[in-house]
């Protein structure tokens, strides 16, 4: 095979490698750089000249200004509420001795198996006008407005309980990683439980808190489903406004500017996060770490209070999940009226999913899109990670940063970039118009998932011992043979995890899908959101519950397989059974 000199000192690549690089350059330019650059140009260049006219349009649009303000209010409020609830659930399950902590943990973890539009829809069915809780409340307070669960309080309530998943994962890990010897040392020096908690434990968790706070703030800024579904006319945030503005060609540039502002905020906050992450040492310097032992709350009043709060939170987390499952077995009439009895529970909705083509169609569409995107993005990430891992050429930074760019951009910005750019023939795309094709959504899914997939797969490549490949070469194996027989099998568990997580994440996506889906091929997220509208039929609502239950089951399985010791446990059981 012909070898060509490229990049760094004496570095040579095969012709196949060069072709691969060219394809990747095209992918990054055509789908990551060009659409976003084009979006900026479309906003700031009018008739060949730089223009700030769009700022005027935004400032003069009361709705746009209000959405900006609301997004900021929501993000700031969430920093407090999410951190409070998130920290409490972690302390209840990991740090303090609370009775039934394992059960509580299962409840708190439900935000990991259902999120986005599914979660908001679930809450709306419970707290909405016909929701079971609203009915209960109105029995106690007859004067209560049936539509009480709307606007800012409803949005912040849902967002608070929806966004504790970062705490459930990262803060839990951080607390579990605490060195118990440090706590014992503090006790040995006479410190009280409170002093240990505030002076020893919390400072160790500072970087985790900071990272979670930034992520929470960003989630608040980019909130979509909650304001859209329960925000009502008075509490709309940037993202729902972008959808509204993007619908009309006249206001599309306002939507684009809002998306750009969202992108800038994201970049700024991520830059701060990176800077803070680099400073300070918070890791235990112990040579022999001890596992954390749960702390007893010595004050009896505080202990009772902690138990009451823990179980109240458990109830809030579990109520929507239980009711979604229950509703999925109910007939349409019961759903519409909110009256559930055992007599109207049946498997009819589930059987409809598999017998009615129309009911199964959204599932099939989302399944195909998610699987195709998850596999495709992993293949691209493997190619880029391999280049970045093996080559020392500075030019390869282009590949690395190229695939990481989408990490800085909100999905609405990416969607708008693609919409604005490929609604007309472009040379870079062989003069093909992508708007109105089924490919566009697939491409968007791939772009959005690129940074995560690349980071995970790159880490897997770097964890491979260098001498493995050298050993294979020593035994006469060529580059491709070594890659297929040695490298890929080693990184396969990580690649499979990435595929499963991406698939799971995309299955009920709404934020990106709503911009780019083909009208004839409506994915699940769009269908579930439509079912939450007041105008939706009872049948559609019933199917939405079935979709949600199955999505939760898939997420649960995905989490079991990809996180913790899921696969190991399965293997052990299988071995034992044999």
């Amino acid at each position, binding site marked *: 095979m012909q070898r060509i000199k490229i990049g760094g000192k*004496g570095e040579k690549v095969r012709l196949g490698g060069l072709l691969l690089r060219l394809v990747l350059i095209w992918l990054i330019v055509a789908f990551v750089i060009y659409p976003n650059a084009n979006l900026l140009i479309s906003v700031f260049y009018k008739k060949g000249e730089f223009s700030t006219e769009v700022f005027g349009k935004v400032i003069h649009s009361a709705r746009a200004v209000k959405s900006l303000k609301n997004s900021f209010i929501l993000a700031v409020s969430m920093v407090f509420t999410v951190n409070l609830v998130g920290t409490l659930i972690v302390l209840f399950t990991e740090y303090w001795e609370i009775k039934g902590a394992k059960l509580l943990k299962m409840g708190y973890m439900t935000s990991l198996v259902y999120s986005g539009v599914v979660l908001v829809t679930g809450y709306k069915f419970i707290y909405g006008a016909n929701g079971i809780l609203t009915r209960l409340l109105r029995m106690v307070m007859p004067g209560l407005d049936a539509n009480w669960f709307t606007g800012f309080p409803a949005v912040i309530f849902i967002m608070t309980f929806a966004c504790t998943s970062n705490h459930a994962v990262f803060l839990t890990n951080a607390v579990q990683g605490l060195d118990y010897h440090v706590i014992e040392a503090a006790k040995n020096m006479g410190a009280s439980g409170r002093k240990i908690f505030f002076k020893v434990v919390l400072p160790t968790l500072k970087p985790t808190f900071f990272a979670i706070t930034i992520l929470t703030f960003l989630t608040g800024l980019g909130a979509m489903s909650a304001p859209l579904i329960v925000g009502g006319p008075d509490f709309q945030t940037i993202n729902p406004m972008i959808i509204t503005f993007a619908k009309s060609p006249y206001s599309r540039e306002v939507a684009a500017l809002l998306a750009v502002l969202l992108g800038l905020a994201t970049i700024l906050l991520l830059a701060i996060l990176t800077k803070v992450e680099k400073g300070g040492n918070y890791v235990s310097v112990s040579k022999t770490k001890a596992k954390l032992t749960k702390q007893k709350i010595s004050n009896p009043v505080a202990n009772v209070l902690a138990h009451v709060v823990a179980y109240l939170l458990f109830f809030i987390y579990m109520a929507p999940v239980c009711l979604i499952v229950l509703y999925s077995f109910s007939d349409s009439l019961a759903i519409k009226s909110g009256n559930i009895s055992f007599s109207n529970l049946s498997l009819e909705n589930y059987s409809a999913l598999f017998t009615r083509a129309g009911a199964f169609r959204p599932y099939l569409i989302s399944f195909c899109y998610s699987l195709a995107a998850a596999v495709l993005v992993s293949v691209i990430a493997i190619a880029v990670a391999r280049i970045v891992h093996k080559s020392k050429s500075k030019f390869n930074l282009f590949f690395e940063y190229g695939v990481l760019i989408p990490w800085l951009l909100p999905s609405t910005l990416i969607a708008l970039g693609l919409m604005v750019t490929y609604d007309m023939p472009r040379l870079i795309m062989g003069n093909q118009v992508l708007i109105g094709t089924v490919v566009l959504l697939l491409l968007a899914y791939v772009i959005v998932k690129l940074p995560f997939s690349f980071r995970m797969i790159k880490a897997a490549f770097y964890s491979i*011992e260098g*001498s*493995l490949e*050298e*050993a*294979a*070469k*020593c*035994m*006469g*194996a*060529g580059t491709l*043979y070594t890659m297929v*027989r*040695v490298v890929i*099998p*080693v990184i*396969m568990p990580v690649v499979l995890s990435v595929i499963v997580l991406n698939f799971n994440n995309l299955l009920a996506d709404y934020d990106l899908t709503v911009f780019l889906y083909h009208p004839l091929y409506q994915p699940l997220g769009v269908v579930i959101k439509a079912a939450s509208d007041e105008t939706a039929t009872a049948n559609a609502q019933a199917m939405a519950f079935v979709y949600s239950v199955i999505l939760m089951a898939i997420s649960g399985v995905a989490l079991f397989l990809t996180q913790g010791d899921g696969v190991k446990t399965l293997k052990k059981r299988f071995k034992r059974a044999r």
Partner: protein
Amino acid sequence: MIDFKNIEIKYGDFIAIKDLNLSVNEGEFFTFLGPSGCGKTTILRALVGFINPSRGQIVVNGKDITHEAVENRAIGMVFQSYALFPTMTVYENIAFGLKVKKLPKEEVRRKVYEVAKKIEINEMQLERNVAELSGGQQQRVALARAIVLEPNILCLDEPLSNLDAKLRVGLRGELKRLQRDLGITTLYVTHDQEEALTLSDRIAVFNNGFIEQVGTPYEIYNYSASEFVCDFIGDINCLHGGMIRAVNEQQHCGLDEHKEAFIRIERFHQTPERGSVKLTGVVKDYEYNGVLTKYNVEVLGQTVKYIRMNDGSAFREPETIIDLYMNPQDIMQFS
């Protein structure tokens, strides 16, 4: 068999190997010995083909292989980390190279079983994943994987360094036996002088990218060519002016009093021999390890080490005055 001619290897601007010339004979067990970062692994990797020399030639059996691809060199290698493929069984690891060569299935099987027998890996172990093996067993698999391809040259990069002391000594003997049986030209990299002295037919002592000395273990130990070799191999006493003067006064052996002189610690005796020099000193302290006791003795204002085999007699306690004898011929001085 193997000729390194004027080899220079650079990492950026840093020169790791400078103008190296060396010949290794066929069937020889040849060791590259030296401290960390001296260039011994670098030259081994250049021979295998993982590093391209910036200058010079590597010739094997008269053929220049300096720029030959790794996979075409027919050189087997055992890595320090063993580099066993973690997703494969022991059998698959050993058979890997044979499958690359596209040998018939039966032949692959026969060869794997043959080499497994030689290296004492049983049938049950062949079916296990390499992760389930102990360190010693993994080391055997790494060796089996390299020799099953019947390479012309076998390179071993600190293959015993990850094992515990007892296992290391055991496997060392097996390695030597195997090499002798197979007759493969073997290049061995280590920083462990004891390993080098035990295993090798010849040793090259490396320092800062240069070879300080090439010779048999006996030559390297007894006739060290430089201060570095003398200091790196074994345990030595460094003698300064006063003590050298005392030796010269007793035996007129013409040692240069302005230069340091060296003597191996086991060359100090407690009984006089013909032509030996007597020095009197005071015991300062001692270390006992069962087989022998190592004393620190102050002689003419300088501390020297002296070892005494455990013959059941009592320790010489600190502040005891003792006489030490040495033969001036055992003293080494370098230009």
